[in-house]
């Protein structure tokens, strides 16, 4: 039992301190990296596993980032593309905290409205705000519905 678990874990190296994002739908790890702002210029140690067989999900992705804790805005964005993701905070090689992401009812200041004529895309004091509705997002101001690839708006 224990041996099998270890073998699975070894697909991605364990980290000493940082964050592990697990149960990302297969293939979406790269979008999670984009949300976290990880690019070719980033310095942190990042491991990515994609399309790992998973009993629950069929296949899943895992992202591990060393020396990094997520801010609430990042967690909200991840919830949008990976609603079943779990986030593990690792310290000294151990899981200190484990949490599930949850889709908030409202998202503020995280995404921009993709309607260029929306008042939230002007110098007015209107901060982009969305309501989560039927699996999509509705802009609080222009009321347009954005569904499908939400990462396009991130």
């Amino acid at each position, binding site marked *: 039992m224990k041996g099998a678990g270890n073998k699975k874990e070894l697909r991605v190296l364990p980290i000493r301190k940082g964050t592990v994002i697990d149960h990302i739908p297969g293939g979406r790890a790269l979008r999670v990296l984009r949300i976290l702002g990880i690019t070719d210029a980033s310095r942190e140690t990042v491991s990515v596993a994609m399309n790992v067989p998973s009993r629950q999900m069929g296949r899943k992705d895992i992202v591990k980032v060393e020396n990094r804790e997520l801010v609430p805005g990042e967690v909200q964005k991840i919830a949008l593309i990976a609603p079943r993701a779990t986030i593990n905070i690792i310290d000294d090689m151990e899981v200190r905290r484990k949490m599930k992401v949850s889709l908030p009812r409202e998202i503020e200041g995280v995404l921009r409205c993709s309607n260029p004529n929306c008042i939230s895309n002007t110098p007015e*004091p*209107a901060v982009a705000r969305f309501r989560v509705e039927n699996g999509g997002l509705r802009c609080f*101001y222009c009321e347009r519905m954005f569904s499908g690839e939400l990462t396009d708006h991130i």
Partner: protein
Amino acid sequence: MFRKRHLISIRDFTREEMEAVLRRAEELERHARPDLMRGRILANLFFEPSTRTRLSFETAMKRLGGEVLNLDSEEASSMAKGETLSDTVRVIGGYADAIVLRHSREGAARMAAEVSGVPVINAGDGAGQHPTQTLLDLYTIRRESHLEGLRIAMVGDLKYGRTVHSLAYALALYGARIYPVAPEGLALPADLQEDLRHSGARLQPVKSLQEALRKADVLYVTRIQKERFPDPQEYRRVAGSYRITLDLLRRAPKGLVILHPLPRVDEIDPRVDGTPYARYFRQAYYGVPVRMAVLSLLLPRRGKGEA
């Protein structure tokens, strides 16, 4: 019950709140109340010209005994010179008891309501909402036909037409049966159809305008804009085939009611105007009692029990 402070979008309404507006409109249409807005000032803040809507609000306020400040598009923009809309709204809110706002940006009225000290009425925000138009459409249907168990054909540009989108949404709350009739490329967007079904509408495809006409109680006609067609000949062909003519109406059911938000170009033959089907000028007239109702609900009389 009506507890709103602002009138921004028809999506904010429950069916009961719509009913409250329609009932009040009916009262005010029957019995004039030139005392209701006495001593009150309404500011018409129009960043885009819309003479019809502006005059309709002005008439409504004056019939209730109130006064109107008009800022046309030139004045509004010159006042706003370099200033944000939110600042302008705060300033005008200091002069007037309520603001009617027309602006080119979607969401402008929602934002104005957040910063305004007085009620804001959305009179059109870009391609967004124009809730008093929807309320007057509902009122017209109620007065000239019936809202319960309604069967309505929506004809024309169903892709970009915000009027039909809002009306369809409102009618969904009444469980209306909707027959969309649109040329190729101007059909009701799929996400909106989904949204409407969620809200209770019964969208039913029809093969032709003739079929819709036979089934419907109300024919709601909107304009097909030339700009939507790259080829002017194609536009003439399409627009022509959706034109409402006497010939088309020969087999129309007796109680059929034809509505149009106006202005029309040539989607309804002027010879139809003389038939009992034509109710679009009544519809325009109903804008006044409906806007009177909105004003009286948003600006209740000060007095007993109120600060």
